[in-house]
């Protein structure tokens, strides 16, 4: 049993009791979400967590394990979502469209990540951050301008294969008090994909390749001196990260059956991902899961709490303005800066050192 677990988790066990409990709780909660937390909003929150786990883990591959900051993660996320959206709109709903869209999106992401990597990583890693920022901004503009193709600002609404659409039902009879419809099938479809992708990324970072990335992160000069070609490894890491982000984008499109620039490409999502990785714990992959779980739940429910606080402070206008739910990013930003200073290893790092 233990050996098998070791194998599945690529010998990278949580190494902290609290963390293990948290992870098991997260997996159980996500696995049983449709039955334990009924209702459309709860299911959407759970699906968003699944998607964000993959997206954030893909970013952690680059930021946490390779030590370079990209601001184009949402560009690849968007490419994945647009791949599914455009193919499903043009070819009609079906698995063929999903397949074609996914392959095209992965190919585009591969080429873009390769180009950006070659242009910037051979000079300095710091160039990479600036160039990805510029390329992502340009891509966002392009996506909203090519409206014949992408639906512009309005985005695209499309249908999924029948078994994944809400109208499909397994039977009239509810099972465990829940009618199994296409929504739930779709949820479990995403659940399986998220688990597979998560374990794949865990496998990658614990492979010799992943160890080399960590060596480069710790000391670029030394890694180069031992004979590892830093540019090659960094570019590979950025390509892998882009491909996983593309897959996460495809998951998003399959779930929402809609895609537009604000849902997948916006810079706010990029900032969210950055915050989740840092708060969850850079360079741990598990941090992505814990961080995404906490963040998405907080984003969906804590804002209501902030509204209560803001209403309570309505007598003092500046305090009310600070506590307004619209300013929730302000508090996240403060939390983010503090966590970079005081616990740069994030929640997971903290838990692992606390023995």
């Amino acid at each position: 049993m233990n050996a098998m677990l070791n194998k599945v988790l690529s010998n990278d066990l949580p190494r902290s009791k609290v963390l293990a409990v948290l992870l098991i709780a997260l997996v159980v909660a996500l696995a049983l979400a449709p039955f334990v937390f009924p209702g459309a909003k709860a299911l959407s929150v759970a699906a968003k967590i699944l998607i964000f786990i993959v997206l954030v883990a893909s970013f952690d591959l680059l930021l946490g394990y390779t030590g370079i900051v990209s601001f184009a993660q949402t560009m690849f996320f968007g490419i994945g979502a647009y791949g599914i959206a455009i193919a499903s709109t043009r070819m009609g709903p079906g698995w063929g469209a999903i397949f074609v869209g996914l392959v095209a999106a992965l190919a585009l992401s591969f080429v873009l990540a390769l180009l950006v990597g070659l242009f910037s990583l051979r000079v300095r890693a710091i160039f990479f951050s600036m160039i990805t920022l510029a390329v992502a901004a340009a891509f966002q503009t392009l996506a909203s301008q090519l409206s014949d193709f992408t639906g512009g600002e309005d985005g695209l609404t499309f249908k999924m294969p029948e078994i994944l659409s809400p109208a499909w039902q397994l039977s009239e009879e509810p099972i465990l008090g829940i009618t199994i419809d296409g929504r739930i099938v779709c949820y479990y479809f995403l659940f399986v994909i998220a688990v597979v992708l998560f374990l794949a990324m865990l496998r990658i970072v614990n492979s010799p390749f992943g160890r080399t990335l960590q060596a480069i992160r710790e000391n670029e000069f030394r890694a180069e001196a031992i004979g590892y070609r830093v540019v090659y490894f960094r570019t590979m890491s950025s390509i892998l990260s882009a491909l996983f982000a593309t897959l996460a984008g495809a998951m998003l499109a399959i779930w929402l059956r809609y895609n537009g620039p604000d849902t997948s490409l916006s810079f706010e999502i990029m900032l969210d991902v950055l915050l989740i990785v840092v708060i969850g714990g850079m360079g741990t992959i598990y941090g992505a899961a814990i961080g995404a779980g906490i963040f998405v739940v907080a984003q969906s429910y804590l804002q209501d709490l902030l509204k209560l606080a803001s209403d309570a402070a309505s007598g003092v206008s500046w305090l009310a303005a600070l506590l307004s739910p619209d300013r929730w990013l302000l508090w996240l930003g403060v939390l983010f800066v503090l966590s970079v200073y005081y616990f740069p290893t994030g929640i997971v790092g903290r838990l692992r050192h606390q023995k």
Partner: protein
Amino acid sequence: MNNNMTDFDWKPLALVPLLALIVAPFIGSGSTWLTLTVAGLAMGMIIFIIASGLTLVFGLMDVLNFGHGVFIALGAFVATSVLGSMADYTNSDSLVDNMLAVLPAMVIAMMVAGAVGLAFERFIVRPVYGNHLKQILITMGGMIIGEEMIKVIWGPLQIPLPLPQAMRGSIFIGDAAIEKYRLIAVVVGVAVFAVLWWVLARTKVGLLIRAGVQDREMVESLGYRIKRLFIGVFVVGSALAGLGGVMWGLYQQSVVPQMGAQVNVLIFIVIIIGGLGSTTGALIGALLVGLMANYTGFLVPKAALFSNIALMMAILLWRPQGVYALSK
């Protein structure tokens, strides 16, 4: 900033007139070309004002400030408050009255941006010297906080920033219509560049800054406190970003809290083209980006932002470190 004329690398400098001449046949009409060129130069000078501080900060201390955009937005928003309270002067037809409103707005914006820059350096940047990864993360965090604070103070919506009365409209040179404000922007930009050039090339402080960019440890070992110099450069850089923000706001005639992040993208392209740390490079990069944006905005409007990225890629193919790479 190289005074030795024989050593000076003229090729990058020649790129600016070269770009203007190459596109001329595509545009066709000479007057349109003149209008676009002046607009491009004006935009380029504003971008240069903003980018100069960022590139010096990087050159001197190896600090890349992703939060630079906050000072742009801050300057512009301060200007809306100052100009809004001086409606008598801005509505007057006399250019002198207008200047009496715009100059204080610029000075106050620079002071506020400089003061916030001082705090930003102390609390955000100082703890993470020498660690690029944390610098990028932290300054990005500072950017988020700054932008949200602007939303708290001025509200999240777009605020109009109309040009003062006498600065509106165009003057005509032959058939070419040239907006007055663009000429003013060019004049202010050239003035800032001249002062910057004078300080860097002709004063003791400038000498130390240039020496610090070349070799920080050497300057320190000669007994100069480079940290203090750096704080000064950071504050001036922030103030210049604030000034650039006022000018950018007037150029766009409106301000939004997200403007800092938007301009940031252009600034990064500029300092990558120019070579991180080089002021002259930043000027060339800014002019190229400004011209390119206006030419493509006229010829193929949809490709405006992409053309700048293509420009950057082309330059990086030619010189991977930017046109004026520092020998580091």
